[in-house]
Every structure is written in C-alpha cells, then in structure tokens.
C-alpha cells in the first residue's frame, strides 16, 4: 500500500515553520533547491503541500525563489564582513564554509550584523573547512569580527584622569571600551590586510571593470606565522576603525585590566619576568596611559557602569 502523504498544514505557525525550513535548506551546487527533503521524500511534494502552482511555475519553483533569495542575501552579507577570510582560503572553500557555518548558525536577530558572532568557535571545531590555512584563517576571522565590534559597539564615558589620580593603584579598577578588542595573533594580520587592499586597488579589483573579476578571484592572502606573537588592538577613533600594535607588556596590562584586575596587580603582571628597570617600566606605563586616555580607551569597569542611552542626545527627548 502506498504511504499516505502528510496532511497539508493549516495553522499559521505550521505553515510558517515548514516554509522557513524549506527556505533555509542549503542550495544545490548549481544553486537550485534541493530535490530531496530531509527524509528522502521528493521536496516537490513538500512544496506542493503548502504552495499553489500557477500556469508558469510549479510549487517547487515558486518556493525555490525564496530559497535562493535567502542564501544569496545571507552569503552576500557574510562575504562582506569576512572578505579577508575568503582571500585566505579561496573562493570555493569560502563558499563551502559559509554555507556550513550559516546552516548551523543561522541568524538569530533582526540584524545581519551578528552573523559572524560564532564563526571563530565554529572554525576551531571544524579545522577541515580552512585546512591547510587554519591558523591564518583563525587569526583573520578574529580581526574581521573585531572590526564589526569596533564599527558600532557602544562606547562608555571616558575616565576622568583626576579621579584616577585620587585613587590608590591597589584598589583602582579600570574598564576598557566595549568597542575595543585585544588580540594576540600568530600572523601580522593588520599588515597583511593593508597590503592586500593596496594590491587590489593597484590592480583595479575594487572597480566594476569586467577585467577585474579575474584579478579578484585570484587575489589571495598568504603568510607564514611571525617569529613572535603580534599584539593588536582593534578600535574606533572618530568613527573610523583602526588597528594599533601593542607591546607585549602593554597587551598584558590591558588584558588584566579588562579581566578586572586592580591597576597595581595589572602593572605587576604585565612586567612579570621583564628585564626592564622599574624606572623604565614606570615610564612605559605612563606613556601608554597617556596614549590610551587620548584614544578614549579607558572607562569605568563594567561593575560601575549604568545603562547608557545611545551616543548623542535624542532629538526632542
């Protein structure tokens, strides 16, 4: 006896759940909708349960329009945020990892800004997706996600230097701006990205010229690990995103502050094992703090912060 086909969904929630599931299934390699449903039955039958055919398109073809639009939209946004990762692993591999990632970590908010939130963890769990460039790919992804954070993450009021001076370093806790990301990398990603962009501009790969397409496809980022770790701050200054190299001790100091250590402990841990004279260390700390204050990186620690309104004062509020 032939198996009875499942009933057509009637309830709004059931129709939406079934259609969303179909829309979010990865496309075939030729960018068409998969012909088999997850249980092996024909996807055309599933489409026909909810979608009417017309005189030009079958139910399957009508549903396919939405399936394609979903993937082209998400892959487009993802590709814009992680263009350097594409240059590391190559277009074909990038497209495969993007689909694998977005299938397991689809968008969970109204904004596509957060699409790459779990990418680093995902790629760590699936090194085969970036092999043989996994270390470089992970470094690049961390920097690209830090750029997303730096672009629009909220800022806190900067610390008042006079208030800092009035508190003993033993008890003073200092926070870092939420838009600031500190990274320890195996590769000089800042320099690599800069060089890569310059090369693309020189070859015209940023223009719309047809000839540029070939260049864009070929353009790759290739690098060996640095001899020493690269310490990088990705931050925002006057509305633009910047990279700033940090000395290892400065990186350790900032990291300790971010993790909640009092200033005195943070300074001590930063210079633990250092051959610097105490006076040299003190001079460095003073110089770094002057720069960080100037850049607006220092703010009250998270425990002292009040909920903030958006930057600038709302009109008419």
């Amino acid at each position, binding site marked *: 006896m032939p198996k009875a086909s499942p009933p*057509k969904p009637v309830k709004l929630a059931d129709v939406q759940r079934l259609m969303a599931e179909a829309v979010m299934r990865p496309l075939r390699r030729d960018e068409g909708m998969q012909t088999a449903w997850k249980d092996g039955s024909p996807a055309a039958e599933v489409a026909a349960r909810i979608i009417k055919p017309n005189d030009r398109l079958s139910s399957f073809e009508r549903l396919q329009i939405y399936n394609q639009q979903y993937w082209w939209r998400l892959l487009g946004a993802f590709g814009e945020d992680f263009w350097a990762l594409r240059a590391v692993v190559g277009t074909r591999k990038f497209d495969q990892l993007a689909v694998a990632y977005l299938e397991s970590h689809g968008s969970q908010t109204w904004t596509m800004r957060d699409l790459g939130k779990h990418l680093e963890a995902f790629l760590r769990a699936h090194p085969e997706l970036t092999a043989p460039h996994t270390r470089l790919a992970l470094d690049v992804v961390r920097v690209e996600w830090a750029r997303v954070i730096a672009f629009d*993450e909220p800022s806190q009021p900067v610390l008042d230097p006079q208030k800092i001076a009035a508190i003993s370093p033993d008890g003073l806790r200092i926070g870092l701006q939420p838009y600031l990301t500190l990274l320890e990398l195996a590769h000089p990603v800042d320099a690599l990205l800069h060089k890569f962009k310059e090369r693309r501009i020189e070859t015209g790969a940023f223009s719309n010229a047809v000839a540029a397409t070939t260049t864009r496809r070929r353009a790759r980022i290739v690098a060996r690990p640095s001899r020493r770790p690269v310490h990088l701050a990705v931050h925002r200054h006057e509305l633009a995103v910047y990279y700033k190299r940090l000395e290892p001790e400065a990186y350790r100091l900032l990291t300790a502050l971010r993790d909640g250590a009092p200033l005195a402990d943070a300074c001590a841990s930063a210079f633990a094992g250092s051959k610097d004279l105490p006076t040299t260390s003190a001079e460095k700390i003073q110089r770094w703090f002057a720069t960080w204050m100037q850049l607006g990186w220092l703010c009250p620690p998270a425990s002292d912060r009040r909920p903030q309104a958006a930057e600038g004062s709302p009109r008419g509020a």
Partner: protein
Amino acid sequence: MPANRFNAFTEYGIGLGLRIPHYAHILERKPLVDWFEIISENYMLDAGRPLHILDQILEQYRVVQHGVSMYFGNASRPNRDHLRKLKRLTKRTQTPWISDHLCWGSVDGRFTHDLLPMPYTWEAVETTARNIREVQDFLEIPVAVENVSSYAEFHVSEMTEWEFLSEVVERADCGILLDVNNIYVSSKNHGFDPYVYLDAVAPERVAQIHIAGHTKFERYLLDTHDHPVLDPVWKMYRHATKRVGRTATLLEWDDRIPSFDEVHREALKANKFLPHAKSLAA
C-alpha cells in the same frame, strides 16, 4: 484629502530613500529634498558612524522610518527588545509615522531576513492585527503596513490579498503604505487585475506610497529596486493618487544605485501625478 491621521496629518511631498552611496553628496551639497526615508534597522545601533550621519541628516531634513524586520505576520508576538530599540530611534528621528511590511520572516528564533508572503487566512488576519496593535501601542505613533511583492500563494488562503489587507488594517486600525510596484509585480506573478486591488484599498488609510523598479524574468517578475519605475507602475500610481489624493510618496532604489541626481530626477517624475503638487524640490 491632503493627509490623514495615519501620517499624522503631515503634508509630505516626494521623498527619497537615504542610502550610503549618497551620504557625501547630501551632506556636502545639501540638495533640496522634501524628506528622506531611512531603513530603521540600519540605525538601531548604540554608536558609530551610521548614527553620526543620521544626526547630521536630521539637522537638515525631515526623516520617516521604514522597517524591514518587524514581521507583523509572524505567528509569534513582536520582540520587546526590538521594539525598545525602535522606539528609541523614533524619539531621535521624530518620525511622524512608521512603516513595515505585511509579511512574516522568522520562526522559532531563526531569521530569514526576507519579506515572506502571508497565507491569507482568518487566523492570520487576527494574529497580524494583534501584532500591529501591540507595536502601535508600544511605539505611540501611527503605524502603516506595506503590501509586499510575492512569488508564491498558499493552498490555505481563504481570501484575496487585498481582502486580507483590508481586514488586517481595519482590525488593527492602522495605516497603509501602498506599494504600487509591489501590487504590479504580484499581479503579474499571480494573474490578478492590479486595478481591482487598487480600487479595494481604503483611501482614507493610505499614509504613504512607494514606487520602484523591478526586473522581468521569463516566467515571473522580481522586485529588485534596481531600475527606474516602469510605465505600467506610473499608470497605477496615477490611478492610486486619483483615489487617495495627495500622499507622501517615496521612490525606492536599493541596488545598482545611480547618482543622487539621477535617483532624485526619477522620484520627481511623481510630481506629474500628484494633485496640487507643491513639492519643495519641484
């Protein structure tokens, strides 16, 4: 019939969508434009360059907010966090009304970022109207819902799209953002008379009109917003403005965006059809 309670009785003329490629032109040359429509989600942020640009625009221009992710037609209720962020932005922009689409787009916390078509059922009427009322009550400004272009129809539908629209806006007591291009695209994709649709729309509820270009494929039309407005859509616009009177009108151009001047010229063609046109930029 110059304006109505769904656009806060404002006399807006012809607006343009505020898009990134035009930022520099607008801020440097300050062209005369009646108003700009912004995509709310692009500015529902806590900091950064987009908000800085928006504040500069607000110093010079009137802004109306248009959303793409409220998903009034979702089976689930509107997200409160989303609403709080949206309300904060409305305080900033002082938008006289706010619009979003008559569609659904997320299920069980997963977002499609698409404007998916509604099954036109009585259950969907009730659910959608409930969601619109909730949003309108929370935001405390008039809400207008926009008809979407669609490529699929559902077996479960119990009425036409225009009947569905009418039932929803009556029950929600909200306005309509009438997208004439979307009606045209859907009419070709589903084989109905677009003028029957236009004539069924309650004119007193139309807060705003959208016009746009679309792309013709062999077997269907796609709403791409990457072309000038096509003649059949202008004809429908003429018909619509005869029924609803002078109404705030916006040209959508979102892909392959040409120069600001070209987009503006295309939008101003609407002046030919608006009764008693007194657009600032005419």
